[in-house]
């Protein structure tokens, strides 16, 4: 027979899958191990990439500043300028992450390339969001789009770089294959000055047609649009149109195309059919030259028009395109939904939503505040959770969770409970974080875990230090009783210095107070203060505070004091009476009721009885002495 067998093992971080081939079941199971591999969630490996890690940490700083500043501002509302500043900070770290990924990539990697694409797409989306929702409104939408294009559409710049490089090697710019594409793309993005400069490098730049187009490009009235001086813009477009009709550019069809674009002439699109890759590139030009007066609400229609002119190749829009369209149609909720499906993780969507809500963007139906708050919280919780699941990002994750007012606390407690507490420095770090977020129960749990670990290793002294940090009376009593037992067996009372140092902290547990007093008794003995020691010991015995199994140790101590070499009476008459009375009840309990409360086993009961007999004798002798002396 030959069968395959799979074994699985996993924890919250990863899963190991192991494959074996079983060749024989009887008489003995035999086979061979084929191989094993580990499955790790993508975020674990992704978050270990230095560029991504840096993005996470830097954006955390921006996020925390944003929350703090919002909270501190009037009516918890930040001004548009401040919001734009934060938006730019986010975009800046996103851009550096993208650059850093490309720079540090060692060899081609699918995941890195994917991540770069996602970050670039993220930048595209974020800058559009900033333009539409965060920037103070006013000024021309078309002009804003030109800025947006310049930031994000770099194809023309790349072509220009190639052309310049070729020019250095002596090739004529206008003979480069991408020359006209670059010029057209510049014009489409409204970068007329850049287009002008490129055209000036043409060998025929002094021809009439070239000079004509140069003049028109120079006069391009972008700031007129900004001043809402639409008539200046229409006049200029009229001029372009008339020169076109008068065949100024007949000798150069490429220049004619440029003129058509500038004049807002539909025939331009036919010429550009093979040049334009996607509707984005057409979109800005369409808005600028064909609908210069457009308002924000008309953007959606213009985008649709661009899509009709340049439909997507395989018929279905990518998530990125869907996001952009949704934004242009001012449907923020839909945009966020599409964005989450084309993002690598929750980073982009959560930070963007948080910023949008602070900018007052309408995410759901008007008046539905709850949706906004819920959405923000949901996304931040998801992002925070993905960080908490990673080995070392728990501090940052915890911070994000702490800014979720409704469920953050519950998530914090649940995640902190899962963080392994295997070394003291980590335990101290966790306790400090618990104090910061006021998670008292988790702090107690951490301290308890440390205590239990130490008890299992038999280090009761150190366990005593940690059980105090747990602030759990039952745990302290437990540890103290173990300490006393150990003393009873080994005769070594450790933690001496700690017991002197406890102060009021001893009051957490009666057992601890007893231990403290018992230590004091030994100190008095050592210092030779026998009378005080005797008094203290009597009090300790008579108060019945000590754990019962420890009483035999106390009795042994008392026995020593009752029989000093110098014949002195250390325990006085009153005290002796008290001890006799106590001893009586103990004897009854042990002999008549056959109780094992004071001993470890049945066998020890006889030994204890003998000790009690000796003790009783010594007490009566002491009584006699005390009476004689008084």
């Amino acid at each position, binding site marked *: 027979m030959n069968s395959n067998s799979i074994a699985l093992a996993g924890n919250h971080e990863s899963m190991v899958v192991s494959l074996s081939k079983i060749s024989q079941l009887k008489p003995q199971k035999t086979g061979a191990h084929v191989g094993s591999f580990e499955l790790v969630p993508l975020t674990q490996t992704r978050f*270990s990439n*230095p560029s991504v*890690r*840096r993005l996470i*940490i830097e954006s*955390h*700083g921006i996020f*925390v*500043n944003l929350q703090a500043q919002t909270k501190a501002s009037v009516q918890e509302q930040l001004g548009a300028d401040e919001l734009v500043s934060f938006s730019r900070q986010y975009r800046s770290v996103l851009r550096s992450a993208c650059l*850093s990924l490309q*720079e*540090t990539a*060692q060899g081609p990697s699918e995941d890195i390339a994917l991540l770069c694409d996602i970050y670039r797409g993220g930048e595209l989306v974020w800058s559009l969001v900033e333009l539409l929702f965060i920037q103070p409104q006013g000024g021309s939408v078309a002009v804003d789009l030109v800025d947006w294009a310049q930031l994000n559409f770099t194809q023309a710049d790349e072509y220009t770089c190639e052309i310049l490089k070729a020019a250095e090697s002596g090739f004529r710019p206008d003979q480069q294959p991408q020359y006209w594409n670059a010029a057209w793309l510049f014009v489409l993005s409204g970068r007329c000055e850049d287009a002008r400069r490129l055209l000036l490098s043409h060998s025929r730049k002094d021809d009439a047609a070239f000079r004509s187009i140069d003049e028109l490009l120079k006069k391009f009235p972008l700031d007129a649009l900004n001043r809402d001086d639409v008539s200046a813009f229409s006049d200029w477009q009229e001029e372009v149109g008339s020169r076109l009709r008068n065949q100024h550019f007949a000798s150069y069809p490429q220049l004619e195309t440029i003129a058509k674009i500038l004049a807002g002439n539909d025939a331009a699109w036919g010429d550009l059919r093979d040049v334009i890759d996607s509707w984005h590139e057409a979109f800005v030009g369409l808005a600028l030259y064909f609908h210069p007066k457009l308002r924000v609400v008309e953007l959606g229609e213009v985008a649709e028009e661009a899509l009709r002119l340049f439909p997507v190749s395989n018929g279905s829009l990518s998530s990125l395109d869907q996001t952009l369209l949704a934004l242009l149609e001012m449907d923020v909720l839909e945009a966020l939904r599409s964005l989450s499906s084309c993002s690598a993780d929750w980073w982009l969507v959560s930070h963007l939503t948080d910023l949008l809500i602070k900018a007052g963007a309408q995410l759901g139906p008007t008046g539905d505040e709850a949706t906004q708050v819920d959405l923000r919280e949901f996304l931040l919780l998801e992002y925070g959770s993905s960080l908490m699941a990673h*080995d*070392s990002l728990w*501090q*940052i994750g915890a*911070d994000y969770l702490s800014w979720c007012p409704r469920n953050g606390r519950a998530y914090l407690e649940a995640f902190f409970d899962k963080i392994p507490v295997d*070394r*003291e*420095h*980590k335990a*101290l*770090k966790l*306790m*400090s974080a618990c*104090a*910061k977020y006021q998670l008292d129960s988790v702090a107690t749990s951490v301290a308890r875990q440390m205590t239990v*670990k*130490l008890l*299992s*290793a*038999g*280090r009761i*002294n*150190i366990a*005593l*230090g*940690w059980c*105090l*940090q747990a602030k759990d009376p039952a745990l302290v009593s437990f540890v103290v009783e173990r300490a006393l037992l150990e003393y009873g067996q080994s005769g*070594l009372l*450790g*933690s*001496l*210095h*700690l017991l*002197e*140092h*406890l*102060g009021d*902290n001893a009051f957490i547990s009666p057992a601890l107070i007893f231990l403290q007093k018992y230590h004091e008794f030994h100190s008095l003995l050592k210092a030779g203060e026998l009378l005080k020691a005797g008094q203290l010991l009597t009090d300790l015995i008579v108060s019945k505070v000590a754990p019962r199994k420890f009483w035999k140790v106390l009795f042994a101590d008392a026995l020593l004091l009752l029989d000093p070499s110098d014949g002195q009476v250390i325990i006085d008459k009153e005290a002796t009476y008290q001890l006799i009375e106590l001893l009586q009840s103990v004897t009854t309990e042990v002999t008549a009721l056959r109780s094992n409360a004071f001993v470890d086993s049945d066998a020890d009961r006889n030994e204890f009885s003998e000790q009690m007999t000796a003790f009783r004798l010594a007490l009566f002798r002491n009584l006699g002495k005390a009476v004689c002396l008084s």
Partner: protein
Amino acid sequence: MVNAPFSSLSERAQFVCGKVRKVRWAIGVDRTTAPDTFATGTWDQPVNDVSLWSTTASRSAAFDSSASPPPAGDTFVQLSRFEIGADCEDLVFATSKTLLVATSSGDVRVLDVTPDQIVQQHAWEQLHSLGSLPCAASCLSVHGTDVVTGGEDGKIIRLDLNRVDAKTKIGNIGLSSVRSLSHCGKDQVISGHLTGQLQVWDLRVKGDREGGDPCQTLAASTALDAVTSLGVHPAQPNLVAFGTQLGSVGFCDIRNAYRPLPDLLPIASGPIWEIAFHPLYPDNCFTCADDGTLLHWDAAALKQSSFRSQDASRMNVWLLGAALSDHVKLTNLLPDQKLPVNSVDLAGGSVLVGSDSELVHLVENVLLR
């Protein structure tokens, strides 16, 4: 009141990918200026490392063509790296080429450090353990060839750099976990414990097999407030500064410990991870804490007698208690820091800082009087 930093300060920071537990300047030739290189040790990563960095090397000089170049815009250049696996708990340069690292698996490793590579010379392994499992060697102190390490198991162990097999135990079994350690002079070591106590040990006393008793025990803070860091005054080794788990700082003179210790000064809302006097300007002290604060304590103003009473006129400024807290100038050198700051080291006018935001900061032109 904590002041904002002076505008003349210049700060450079670099992302080093890995939470930085300790930063240490290399031992420089000239004590008045900062050396060119420093070391870092990371913690809480799946695999931790110790690295040597340069503050001045140009990228082309430091790297040959086979190695991948560092990203553009890097302030510090990583020269060499050594994986230690477990967390770095403490880091000390014993000589300009020898670096000692204490790890959370109970080891103390001796590393030979050069710009080309870091190689382990030898290691004392599992010096500290709880039962059969290793536990962290939490702190390290070096004086000449004398090395002392303290651990989570409450043991303090004395080692010799020149004799690999020499291991002496200091202190008996009754100690609580050792969180911090420092030599104060050639023959004395002071240890700070989880239970808020300081203990002073005389290294000349030959203990019995179980170690000896400390020559002094001081109550630095309460039993629930660990002593998380220690710093010894460079000119007066009997003057010790300590930081605690709950964010307080205290100063004490171990020669006059019978006097009540000056009050603790609460300055942070989290553990003080490192406290250090400036080696050349000891009226300046630096603390870094879990709440992200990096404080420069400038006590130079207190030298004027107007702040001091008659009998306090000859006391070191740091021991002035209330007068210190009223008149010391505190400046937060990293006002924007959000995550815990773990380590600080000083050389010349430069302050080197390591934090949980996986950054190493270098603050230069710090005003020192």
